[in-house]
């Protein structure tokens, strides 16, 4: 066992209460989501997504990259002119002309992004730490002249030297930046390290921190939650977790995890999640896996005997929230893992009655069928099977006694 004392202390501290009012969602479906290799939104789609995000109650929308010009700029202008309730943010490199493009689009907030890790500074920017801080300085000063809300994004913060990251945060704070975005660009943090690094920045520099996490090791949501526990107040999410490589922290997962695991309700209208998710799936041409957390079509579909029969009596046995909370439905299907109770309930819902011992016999037939078809059965197939079973039973009534396994 390793470093137990420190980690236990972390876990305890991380159990402290979070103030719901302070936590804000800054959704980047339209920026990092669209930046995903292969994804292009039409401008109409971008506008529609922005409206939906505003309707469910996100606090800020990262609408795109004005410096790309052309169509992109048109879309952002159209979004800012919608006069939505939420703030509209434009993404920029730490370059003055980028910020001018943002201003032209009418955004009220800008993110100014620059790498903070030596790896990036050396291998990508081919510059120095001083150059990075200078760029932050000139660009933040420029943005502040126009009274914009400014987020300074520390790209690749997770591989940055902590001392330099603190210097970076201090520089941003002293220039009047409103927050610093902590970018786990490669998705390499775990929740404990996230907690430690973010808490250090907040404790020492005292700047508002936003979490931007990636899912390369399946930790995007856990790291976002860890950031909030450490005191971060903004979370950068995307619908369906759309984003570069393995994607970002999924909006719907983060909101529900916060609500049901941490008891922090952001007041987002979660019932629209499935709709929102479907729309973005179509616009991005990426299907929603049926098993996708929160909004997957299969989440409230039960087949295996124990889960199916128990959930019918009391949904809470296998559900922390109900399907209606996210715009889904509860369903029973009958397949290889189904048993007597599932079958009886299913037949009942289809308008047929069957006794316990007969159901056991029929269940064996149904399982064989599912095995040979390599899938669960359709309702009409269940009814068919039931009818031929009944017919066969009438013929040989009372003569057969098949051994049936439980």
């Amino acid at each position, binding site marked *: 066992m*390793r*470093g137990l004392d420190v*980690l*236990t202390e972390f*876990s305890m501290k991380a*159990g402290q209460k979070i103030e719901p009012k302070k936590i804000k969602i800054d959704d980047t479906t339209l920026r990092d989501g669209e*930046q995903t*290799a*292969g994804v292009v*939104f039409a401008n109409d789609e971008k506008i529609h997504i922005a409206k939906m995000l505003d309707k469910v109650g996100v606090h800020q929308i990262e609408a795109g990259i004005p410096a*790309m010009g*052309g169509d992109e700029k048109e879309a952002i202008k159209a979004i800012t002119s919608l006069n939505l309730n939420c703030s509209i943010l434009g993404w920029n*490199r730490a370059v003055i002309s980028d910020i001018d493009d943002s201003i032209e689009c009418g955004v009220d907030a800008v993110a100014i992004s620059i790498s903070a890790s030596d790896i*990036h500074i050396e*291998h*990508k920017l081919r510059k120095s730490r001083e150059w990075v801080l200078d760029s932050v300085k000139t660009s933040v000063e420029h943005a502040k002249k126009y009274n914009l809300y400014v987020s300074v994004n520390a790209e690749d913060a997770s591989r940055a030297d902590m001392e330099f990251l603190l210097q970076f945060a201090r520089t941003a704070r002293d220039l009047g930046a409103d927050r610093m975005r902590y970018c786990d660009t*490669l998705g*390499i943090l*775990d*929740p*404990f390290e996230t907690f430690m690094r973010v808490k250090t920045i907040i404790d020492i520099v005292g700047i508002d921190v936003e979490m931007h996490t990636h899912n390369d*090791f*399946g*930790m995007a*949501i*856990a790291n976002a*939650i*860890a950031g909030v526990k450490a005191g971060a107040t903004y979370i950068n999410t995307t619908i369906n*977790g759309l*984003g570069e*490589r*393995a994607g970002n922290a999924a909006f719907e*997962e983060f909101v529900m*995890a916060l609500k049901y695991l941490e008891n922090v309700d952001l007041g987002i209208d979660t019932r629209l999640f499935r709709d929102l998710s479907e729309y973005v799936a179509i616009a991005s*041409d*990426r299907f929603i*896996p049926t*098993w996708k*957390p*929160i909004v997957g079509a*299969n989440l409230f*579909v039960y*087949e295996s005997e*124990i889960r199916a029969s*128990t959930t019918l*009596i*009391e949904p*809470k*046995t296998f559900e*922390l929230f109900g399907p209606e909370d996210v715009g889904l439905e509860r369903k029973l299907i009958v*397949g*290889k*893992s189904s048993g007597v109770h599932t079958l009886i309930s299913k037949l009942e819902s289809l308008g047929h009655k069957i006794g316990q011992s007969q159901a056991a016999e029929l269940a064996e037939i149904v399982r064989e069928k*599912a*095995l040979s078809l*390599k*899938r*669960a059965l359709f309702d009409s197939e269940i009814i068919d099977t039931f009818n031929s079973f009944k017919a066969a039973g009438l013929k040989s009534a009372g003569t057969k006694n098949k051994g049936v*396994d*439980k």
Partner: protein
Amino acid sequence: MIVEDKERKINIIDTTLRNGEQTAGVVFSKHEKIRMAKMLDEIGITEIEIGTPSIGASEREIIKEIVASGIKGKLFTYTEAIPDNIRLAAECGIKNIIINISTSDLHIKVKYGQNRTWVLNQLKETIAAAKHYDLNFIISAEDATRTDLEFLLKLLHLAEKKEAYRFRICDTVSRLDPFRTFLLINTILNTVDFPIEVYNHNDFGMATANAMAAVRAGAVSLVTSINGIGEGTGNAALEEIIMALKYLENIDLGITTSRFREISEYVAKASARAVPVWKAIVGTNVFAHESGIHADGVLKNPINYEVFEPGEVGLTRQIVVGKHSGSHTILHKFKEFGIDLTINEANDILAMSRAMSVDLKRPLFDKEMMYIYKDYEDKNRKASDSHIE
């Protein structure tokens, strides 16, 4: 922060063939199950759950065949704590079993209509049956994360006394976050020194993170499935767990990770569930770079945006040309085609490519890039021809 322990090994028990198949709508054929068991064995997974004998005669036939297929690792079957079921496992030639019983008061009441004493007795009787058949057994506490801690510890003491192989903590409804996982496992291990295994579900997208937190707290074994396939949102994905252990926890289990993509594809086919292109570790998009900044960074040096080489998980790197591409990507792409562009040419072609990508609502194929290049050349030639005239 963490005391490094290079020698530390974590056991993996894979349940693709058991809980994976229990997924609503998923049915594996016999051949697929045998093939998957062999694949897991070949890449170095030493414990495999292969099925549930009590499901029926056909399931038992498949289990028998897997047992006879010459797999080196330990094979487990799964059962609820019902003494009569133990014989079924023994008859399949199985030597290791998982005895599952719900331990939360809610489950005990709704699922069994019973009380805690009944749970203890049922477990004792099932253990006695397992011992009768000389089976190695893991005790699995379903809904352990909503179970009264004192009762859970009581069951752990029972497991210790009866010499269970391990004790499994099931986070059945994904009630935990990593911090709570750590506290729970840490608390348990401070009270009972017994090998703990953790079974995570992914309802809030935290299965892998919770598994890693459990490892940090001292758990010795994790339950996984390929592609994370399993009931509801599924389980902790084998490929994510192995790579997270290696790159985030510094624990290298020596698994043949270069076969991950192949195995993932196989299970995707067998379960009729596509691997999302963005699936962590094995999705085809994980090493695809389009945006100017990312692609440029990767072309300069892959460590800018990659933690490990794509070949390590059986993937390849791709540079995609689309709406977010930059001029460096264009230069690089055409170099691949054997054409050296000037910066000005690259910028012109970039503008044409972006416009086309916006129009098509997708990135461009290599062929389409060549068409753009031809159009561009034609246009230039015409311009210079008219100039000559």
